[in-house]
């Protein structure tokens, strides 16, 4: 069938301003797909939104266990949405384990939609319930919608020639159909997606579409015959333009391509598979049509080295990984610093140390980015704050890397990489242009003679007649680039490498206050994915009357030149971070200010309430 429109709705729909829904199920239940499709339909409907996919490290953890639960949370509303939501209003639980894991997060009085068909003794025991939660008072504080989704899905697709196992696999789409009905969303994009995804197995596409429609029809029918209520969340008022949803990974990949085009370069990505950074490799591997070459190297070191080789030969070398992989790349990054070659290093951070929690988010590689190399080896460090911000930060990283002949560390986080939000597609005429000029003139050529403004050395690539020269990781003469053991030359080169990076502060925007005023009493300073919860908490605190502001830092090295003065203007500086105080240390050591940390390393993003509580505690009762 064709997805129907949002017209002709029952008058009983309840109007709400915002909703947080969590889809939770077994890792084989297709919860990420369900969440992504609900997101797509919600974006197309016109709501602002933020998502939080949260899945286990195991590809197929044992069925029915709590550690095998995969969840996808979406927060959408009729106003601007900045976070994926503190606590779900609605929990969709596809089995007892999913219920067990998410129950504590659910708002008291919230709604639970569960698949009764999975609540057998075995699954209940596996989930760790002492008794059947459907029969005791576990669910008393909530409104529970008990549906035998398994049975209804089997019933819906019974006329199609599928095995029971294949039929049951459609139950996530039955559930999606119901939830799309409940929030008055279209189904068209999902139907299109299914038909495309299963174009080679049309019977599977048909079964899932059938289940989707059956779930939707169930909502419509039950609404008339029972107390099942549908909701309406009005469209968000947003700027006119063409929109789409993007994940941080997509935005980052596209930003790199746009940046490379702006520089007039091809991209050579050297990468090695690692969670949660691999999707960037997958994404770029599909962009050959846009001048991207990808190289899946034999290890992390080869990945960065191939990117350095590519930059040496005149492409834009890019390497991407997560913390453990970045640690392996550090010696090579030092080589790129020493030989002054452009390179973009993307670190999609995850919880550590060591292997840590590969699928859980954290922002604990700031020290690694800023300090993590042997000797005095400075490089610019930029951090993305939202999925869509990844686009701009990627372009900016390419600009700085090529203009200043330096590796740039781009920090993103597992949470940003996987999360999606609507994005107003920029007009291509508004995209920047910063073409690279390779050195071609042999007259007076010296490999390490510098541009007086940027202190960048010339980019002279093999294949250029008359510019044959040698570079390497040994200290170089400050002009000729020949090996130099001269003491004064080493002092000079160390100084100039530092001055070059510090000078980038003149070429980046001044730090702005994201929310609040310079005259406020307290400022919350963040970086990376904490943007949403900090900003939301500060807004709420201001509504409560607290004199508090929010500063979010994109440029970590070098810091914006006005940041010190700005911070000194506040009585209190609070630095919320998903680490043990890394930006905090950097700010304290740079500006000698008495900043205080608010730290969380649970593998989960901050809740707005956690930050708001911290503000209230420090500011006392609002005046």
């Amino acid at each position, binding site marked *: 069938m064709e997805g129907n429109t949002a017209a002709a709705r029952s008058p009983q729909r309840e109007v709400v301003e915002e909703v947080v829904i969590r889809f939770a199920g077994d890792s084989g239940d297709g919860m990420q797909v369900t969440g992504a499709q609900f997101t797509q339909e919600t*974006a*197309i409907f*016109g709501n602002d939104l933020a998502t939080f996919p949260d899945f286990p490290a195991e590809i197929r953890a044992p069925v029915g266990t709590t550690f095998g639960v995969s969840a996808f949370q979406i927060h959408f509303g009729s106003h601007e949405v900045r976070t994926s939501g503190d606590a779900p209003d609605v929990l969709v639980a596809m089995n007892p384990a999913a219920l067990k894991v998410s129950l504590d997060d659910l708002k008291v009085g919230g709604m639970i939609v569960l698949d009764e068909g999975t609540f057998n003794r075995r699954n209940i025991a596996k989930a760790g319930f002492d008794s059947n939660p459907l029969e005791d008072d576990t669910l008393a504080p909530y409104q529970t919608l008990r549906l035998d989704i398994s049975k209804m899905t089997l019933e819906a697709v019974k006329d199609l020639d599928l095995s029971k196992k294949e039929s049951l696999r459609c139950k996530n789409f039955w559930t999606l159909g119901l939830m799309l009905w409940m929030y008055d969303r279209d189904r068209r*994009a999902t139907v*299109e997606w299914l038909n495309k995804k299963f174009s080679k197995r049309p019977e599977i596409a048909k079964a899932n579409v059938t289940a989707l429609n059956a779930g939707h029809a169930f909502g419509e029918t039950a609404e008339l015959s029972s107390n099942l209520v549908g909701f309406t969340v009005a469209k968000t008022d*947003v*700027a*006119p333009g*063409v*929109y*789409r949803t993007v994940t941080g990974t997509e935005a980052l990949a*596209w930003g790199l*391509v*746009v940046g490379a*085009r702006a520089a007039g370069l*091809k991209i*050579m990505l*050297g990468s090695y598979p690692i969670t949660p950074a691999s999707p960037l490799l997958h994404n770029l591997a599909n962009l*050959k*049509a846009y*001048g*991207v*070459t990808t*190289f899946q*190297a*034999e*290890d992390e*070191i*080869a990945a960065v*080295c*191939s*990117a350095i*080789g*590519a930059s*040496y*030969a*005149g*492409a834009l*070398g890019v390497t991407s990984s997560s913390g453990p992989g970045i640690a392996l790349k550090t*010696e090579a990054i030092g*080589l790129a610093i020493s*030989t002054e070659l452009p390179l973009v290093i993307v670190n999609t951070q995850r919880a550590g140390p060591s292997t840590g929690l590969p699928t859980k988010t954290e922002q604990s590689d700031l020290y690694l980015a800023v300090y993590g190399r042997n000797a005095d080896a400075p490089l610019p460090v930029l951090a993305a704050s939202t999925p869509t911000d990844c686009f701009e930060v990627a372009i900016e990283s390419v600009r700085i890397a090529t203009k200043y002949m330096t590796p740039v560390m781009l920090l993103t986080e597992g949470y940003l990489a996987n999360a999606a939000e609507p994005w107003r*597609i*920029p007009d*291509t005429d508004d995209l920047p242009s910063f073409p690279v000029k390779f050195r071609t003139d*042999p007259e007076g050529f010296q490999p390490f003679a510098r541009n007086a403004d940027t202190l960048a050395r010339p980019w002279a*690539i*093999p*294949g250029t*007649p*008359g510019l*044959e*020269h*040698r*570079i*390497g*990781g*040994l200290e170089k003469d400050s002009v000729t680039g*020949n*090996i130099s053991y001269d003491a004064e030359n080493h002092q000079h080169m160390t100084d100039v490498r530092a001055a070059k990076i510090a000078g980038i502060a003149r070429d980046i925007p001044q730090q702005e206050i994201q929310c609040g005023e310079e005259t406020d009493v307290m400022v919350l300073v963040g970086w990376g994915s904490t943007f949403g919860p900090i900003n939301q908490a500060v807004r709420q605190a201001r509504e409560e009357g607290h004199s508090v502001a929010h500063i979010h830092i994109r440029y970590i090295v070098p810091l914006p030149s006005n940041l010190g003065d700005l911070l000194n203007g506040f009585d209190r500086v609070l630095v919320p971070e998903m680490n043990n105080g890394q930006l905090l240390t950097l700010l304290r050591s740079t500006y000698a200010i008495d900043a205080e940390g608010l730290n969380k390393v649970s593998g989960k993003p901050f809740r707005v309430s956690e930050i708001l509580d911290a503000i209230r505690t420090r500011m006392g009762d609002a005046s």
Partner: protein
Amino acid sequence: MTGTATGQLTAKDFTTDQEVRWCPGCGDYAILKCVQRTLPELGVRRENTVFVSGIGCAARFPYYMSTYGFHTIHGRAPAIATGIKLANPDLDVWIVTGDGDALSIGGNHLIHVLRRNVDVQILLFNNEIYGLTKGQYSPTSRRGTRSPSTPKGSVENPISAAALALGAGGRFVARTVDTHQKRMPQILKRAYEHRGASLVEILQNCNVFNDKVFSHITDKSVAVERQLHLEHGKPLLYGADDSHGLRVTPGKFELEAVTIGENGITQDDILIHDETNRTLASLLAVMEPPALPVALGVIYCDPAPTYGDGVKQQEEVADGEASIESLLRGGDRTWTVMG
């Protein structure tokens, strides 16, 4: 500058003004001279040639070549070279490495550059010792090698560069000796002309930390009996007046040394070298005195499509010029908000 991009170049045109800093008497000098002498004969252009090295004595090589040169980090030259070739497949890329650089810290990269068949030449200077760090045993040092880190002798088995290269799927494997100034150019030429990864192991004397380590092969008194110079299509003969040869031991899958005229052995019993035969190559690669001579020359050469060929094919299909508009607005998942 002397020479031009297109004119006749000489060895001098490939020499830099940098003072060569190897120890006096080091085998590296001879290899450098040979390479500088051979490049003009290959008709290469200086601006199109890149020497990439890792770390170690051999790794200083690029500073002495007036081409493009990149002295990188320990063991990683093959990975850097792969990136160079991906960015610009038209460049001639030579990797200069040593036994520690290529077979210890960089072993992984050597395996994979060979497996992928990246179109580069790898010159592996094997002196069976760590020279630049003052004489520790290396992965090619023989069992019992006494060194500062093995005062009672090494208890490890050495690795064979040529056997490793064959095992990794290398399509060109050759071996030569630093002092073989007449034979080495031919081997360098073959390596250069081979499309794909070519590995040339060069037995190189470190006169400071491992002097005469190859004298049991290279001394004039034994050379003729212990070196077998391979030629494709020619019988595997060696020794004074080609008096010895190799055959497959009857009833066993192994090579044995035989003397022509003894025990009824004639020229017809001697194996013919077929450099495209990987099985034969794997037997030749590991031959050691005293039972068998050392195989020198092109052990294996059997070209196959290169890594660059495959990459280029996919890129040609994709063309690389698609518009940003199509990237950002591609697909059917966009929607318009009216003003």
